[in-house]
């Protein structure tokens, strides 16, 4: 009969109206500025640089300015300049570091490819999204100082991934140390042997290995 479909629809809306007062499934609003969204661990917005020590962020940057992310970044929003000298990193080894590391967040598309290609676990994705601003240039171009955040912060936003990374890094470091120790032993045995090769670059997993 004419009107039954309309009545059915009216019943649905009425149910939702009443339900919005007692049923959380029918009242889904999060009062945003007061209630912050529960971001999932995997959430990514813009990249940041990881440093190992919060008190000395520039001295403990993991980034060695290899510029892979700069090359791989699809929208080309990363700009890196290598340093000419070397500074000791967190483990005390001399490394090249980024003299300039800038990310233009007004271009970045949060694709995470820089994170995926980074062999040093130096760049990770941040979760801060409240960055609306009135100033296009000053506030949206992040330089090295603004980008650097300590590993502890990384742990707070991506605990699982951070733990994995830390475990891998320590394992790599131990392996390298053992290798160095073995090399040193070997060297002690055969003083003529060539010095131990540089510590291998930490590899995340197999898929990252590049062919050429």
């Amino acid at each position, binding site marked *: *009969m*004419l*009107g039954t479909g*309309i009545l059915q*629809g009216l019943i649905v*809306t009425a149910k939702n*109206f009443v339900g919005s007062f007692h049923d959380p499934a029918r*009242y889904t*609003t999060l009062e945003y500025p007061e209630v912050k969204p529960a971001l999932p661990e995997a959430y990514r917005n813009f990249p940041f640089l990881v440093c190992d020590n919060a008190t000395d962020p520039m001295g403990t940057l993991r980034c060695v300015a290899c510029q892979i992310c700069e090359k791989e970044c699809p929208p080309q929003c990363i700009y890196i300049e290598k340093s000419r000298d070397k500074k000791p990193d967190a483990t005390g080894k001399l490394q090249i570091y980024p003299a300039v590391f800038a990310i233009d967040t007004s271009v970045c598309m949060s694709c995470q490819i820089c994170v995926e290609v980074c062999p040093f676990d130096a760049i990770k994705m941040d979760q801060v999204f409240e960055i609306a601003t009135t100033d296009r240039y000053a506030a949206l171009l992040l330089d090295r100082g603004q980008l650097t955040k300590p590993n502890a912060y990384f742990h707070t936003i991506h605990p699982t991934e951070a733990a994995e990374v830390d475990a891998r890094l320590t394992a790599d470091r131990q392996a390298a140390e053992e290798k160095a120790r073995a090399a040193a032993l070997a060297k002690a045995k055969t003083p003529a042997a060539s010095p131990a090769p540089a510590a291998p670059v930490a590899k995340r997993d197999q898929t990252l290995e590049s062919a050429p």
Partner: protein
Amino acid sequence: MIAAALTPDSFLERLPVLARDTVTGLLPESWCWLAGSLLEIIAILAGFGLLFAYLTLAERKILGRIQNRPGPNRTGWFGLLQPFADGVKALTKEDVVPAGADRVLHFLAPVVLVAVSLLGFAVLPFGRHLVAVELDTAVLYFFAAGTATELAVFMAGWASHNKYSLLAAMRALAQLISYELPLLLSVVPVVLVAGTLSTTKIVAAQGGWSLGFVPHWHVFTPWGAAGFGLFMVAALAESNRSPFDLPEAESELIAGHLTEYSGFKYALFFMAEYFGMCALSGMAVTLFLGGWGAPSALLEWIPSYAWFTAKLLVLLLGFIWIRATLPRLRLDQLMKFAWKFLVPLTLLNLANAAGWSLTAGWTGPLQLVRWAVALSLVAVPFVVLGRTLSAGSAPRTYRFA
């Protein structure tokens, strides 16, 4: 001006009238009439102005609740100042008149519309003693006053010099003309049975109760219920509300005749739409829902204007509810619905009402026959016409591969 006091009145009941008389009493005799009228106009303007403001908020909040969200709640306490923020903004917004527009008509359209939509309130009896103008021909006046809205909508659409507006103006003309007829025809049974065109007398005719709790409202008779339904459908269309909001169809014609209006003129259109809605709902309350009458003898102590307001609000809630649910009709379907469905039904309803008033003397088993005949006169044409109207469209079943 004061309707005949039917029952002993409480102080609350007479409060508005007393307030008016107190004020006019301060003035010399010759000014009384003018001051009284002015006060009534101011009261209606203030009352319905406030109602308009909060109706917009209520619409937004109720729509929100239906859509699982709270709606405006940040401007003032629970968002109660939201309409005023909107008002301040609309007042201070730049007023743009398109280059090719007909400036005079572009300006006149909203003004005429608001003025005209306010006229109808003059004859609505808001309470036992509350009617601005006692007219013998009140119902006729009400609909005569309402007709000029079409002109205003047309003026707006035509003057904007915009094709969407022009299409909207054509649609508005076609729609309003088509629904004027069923609207008027659905009122005629009430006039026929009540034997008067005066709104106060129509309300008075619906006074009293059977068994103390079944009021003698027209809506509780078969023809009255049908008439009420038909009137409300036509009223929906006349006030351009969903599902009949074709002239300002957002998804088709941008905003139709409103496309070129900004700032306060736009707010005026908005206001007129709500005033029209209130006026038509008020008329429906008067004609079918017993006006200011209480639904039960036990509840008579509540002032009559409270009852009127309550009934009005319920109808307005219905408007909002329907808007939140239904999709829009197409123009040809709209016309078909008016001419092939509403008009025949209203005509039959007229006959039904005539039969009802002729058989008023029937009692006992004849009373049952009277009800059965009247009910079937409502139900059978509805089903039959509904079938023909929706012929060819039905939910389908599908095959799977």
